[in-house]
């Protein structure tokens, strides 16, 4: 337990360090470089004074160690610096606006695909040779390997352009003024999220289904299932109490393991739909060379995922009675 917490802290520290070090590896004065690039793209108004100001603001006139300590203290206070492309907003403001959308997207897609995938996987795994399996499995295989954003593009084409069923971009329709939470507003939000969520769900379902099928197939070979049948228990009860409970455990840990992957995919999907989450933010920041934002988002992602994994590590012993009560 302590080892895990220690590892967690080490990871975060390493991440912060990397975050800090990498930009400073670029030769040359970063401020001038960025300004030069921005000027190339037509943004004007940068004077020598401004350069000095920025250098001081970003603490680049101090030595490396002080810089790092400053960085750490600022970061722990939640101050991630100022955004270049959305100046004068701070990085944390910008991230704060984008974060909820990404969380919503991820949460919804993961839950939907996990549940559906596991149910389908259980059904297919239980029947030894089902027609359902033969029909779905190849499709699941193909769809599972395609990255989310590619599915997103296809879906966008078919359902936002060819047959304009869903909106192509954004999380809410333009022109809607915030009157407070109303049913209409929520409906609009959901409508806008259908395609992005669908992209992730279609791809992930395949993966959950195949892993659940494998799990169930494994469990079915176990002796306690045979005994359950011998006891004359109803098949549905056996499936529920004996097979599923054992097969679901690894699926739950699987959630934690794949959360990094899912998040990466979700970010790219946002780009396709200009869905204003962290992915879209990152994309724009990259285009604008907004390093503070890039660093901030990367840091946040690393933090979120590490925390999720840690939580899962802590939760797992609670749900698995073998670990909870220890091996005697």
């Amino acid at each position, binding site marked *: 337990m302590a080892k895990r917490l220690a*590892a967690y802290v*080490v*990871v975060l520290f*390493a*991440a912060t360090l*990397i*975050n800090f070090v*990498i*930009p400073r*590896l*670029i030769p040359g004065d970063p401020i001038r470089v960025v300004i030069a690039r921005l000027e190339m793209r037509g943004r004007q108004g940068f004077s020598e004074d401004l350069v000095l100001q920025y250098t001081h603001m970003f603490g680049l006139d101090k030595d490396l160690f002080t810089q790092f300590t400053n960085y750490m203290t600022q970061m722990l206070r939640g101050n991630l610096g100022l955004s270049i492309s959305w100046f004068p907003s701070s990085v944390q403001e910008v991230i704060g606006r984008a974060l909820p959308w990404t969380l919503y997207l991820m949460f919804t897609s993961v839950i939907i695909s996990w549940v559906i995938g596991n149910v389908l996987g259980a059904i297919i795994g239980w029947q030894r040779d089902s027609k359902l399996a033969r029909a779905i499995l190849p499709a699941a*295989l*193909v769809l599972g*390997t*395609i*990255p989310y*954003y*590619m599915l997103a*593009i*296809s879906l*966008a*084409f078919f359902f*936002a*352009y*060819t047959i304009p069923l869903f909106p*192509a971009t954004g999380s809410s329709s333009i022109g809607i003024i915030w009157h407070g939470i109303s049913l209409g507003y929520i409906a609009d939000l959901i409508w806008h999220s259908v395609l992005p969520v669908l992209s992730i769900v279609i791809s992930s379902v395949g993966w959950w289904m195949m892993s659940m099928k*494998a799990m169930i*197939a494994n469990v079915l*070979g176990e002796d306690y299932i045979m005994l359950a049948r011998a006891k004359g228990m109803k098949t549905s009860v056996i499936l529920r109490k004996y097979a599923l409970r054992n097969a679901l455990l690894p699926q739950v840990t699987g959630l934690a393991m794949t959360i*990094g*992957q899912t*998040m*990466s995919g979700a*970010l*790219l999907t946002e*780009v*396709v739909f200009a869905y204003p989450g962290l992915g879209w933010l*990152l*994309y724009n920041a*990259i*285009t604008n*060379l907004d*390093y503070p934002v*890039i*660093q901030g*988002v*990367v840091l946040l*992602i*690393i933090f979120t*995922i*590490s925390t999720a*994994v840690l939580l899962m590590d802590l939760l797992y012993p609670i749900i698995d009675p073998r670990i909870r009560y220890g091996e005697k």
Partner: protein
Amino acid sequence: MVRFLEALRKRSGFANELLRNRKILAGIVIFLGMSLISVAGSYLAPYNPMRLGTFPPEMPPSFPAHILGTDSIGRDLLFLLFISILNSLQIGLAVAGFGTIFGLLVGLISAYSGGFTDSALSTVTDIALVVPMLPVLILVSSMIRVVEISTMILILIIFSWAWTSRTIRAQTLSLKERDFVYMAKLSGMGRFEIVFREITPNMISYVGVNFFGTCFWAITAEAGLSFLGLGPQTTTTLGNMLYWAQNYSSIYKGLWWAWATPIVAISVILVALYLVNIGLDEVANPKLARQRL
């Protein structure tokens, strides 16, 4: 070395078994097919496919002039596709190769040395595993001024070895305790001899799975990075093709060939790799195969 090959050849039935598995066969055939087509196609180009404005832009597919149409900046998509596939495959294989070798070494050393070396290497591996790759890759990529294919490969290698190292280490640890290794030790074999003669042939299937898995990951990661605009700028890859498609709004201009082409190409490659992987898994664990009866 000779003895290593001997040990491998003793399992000559193994090679046959590998090819007999339908999945592996299908996967490899598809993969090789794609490679050959792309190599051939790239060399057959009568002009530089990357040059902008060679053709009228945004033309839909027509036979025989532009089988896959042209993109928004006047390039023929078919030849663009050939080169993209070639580049993406190159990146995938290179990363897979180096990553697997590196991972194999780290895993073996870690498992066989034990003690401090093991702890240190394992911690590093774990960190590399837990840290989500895409954000860090994005970070690194965005910092680098000019990205070439070789740069891409180097960047991806950073993360590619972690998973392999972990699996290999786990497998080596379990094999290390097995009876046949004890026999070897008793008969006086040196440490390295044991590793090469006894342990490694047993791990071939794992190495194989890791190789193709890493290749899968590398191609996906490259596509993702390129899609965001962080890909090799001097040439085209499948991810780059998607980047351009997205940037020039091919979706909403109805230019389905611009985005469908790279997607189909990547899907085919990825499915092929995945098939090889599960096929290898089946061969390595015959129990799974038997359940299908």
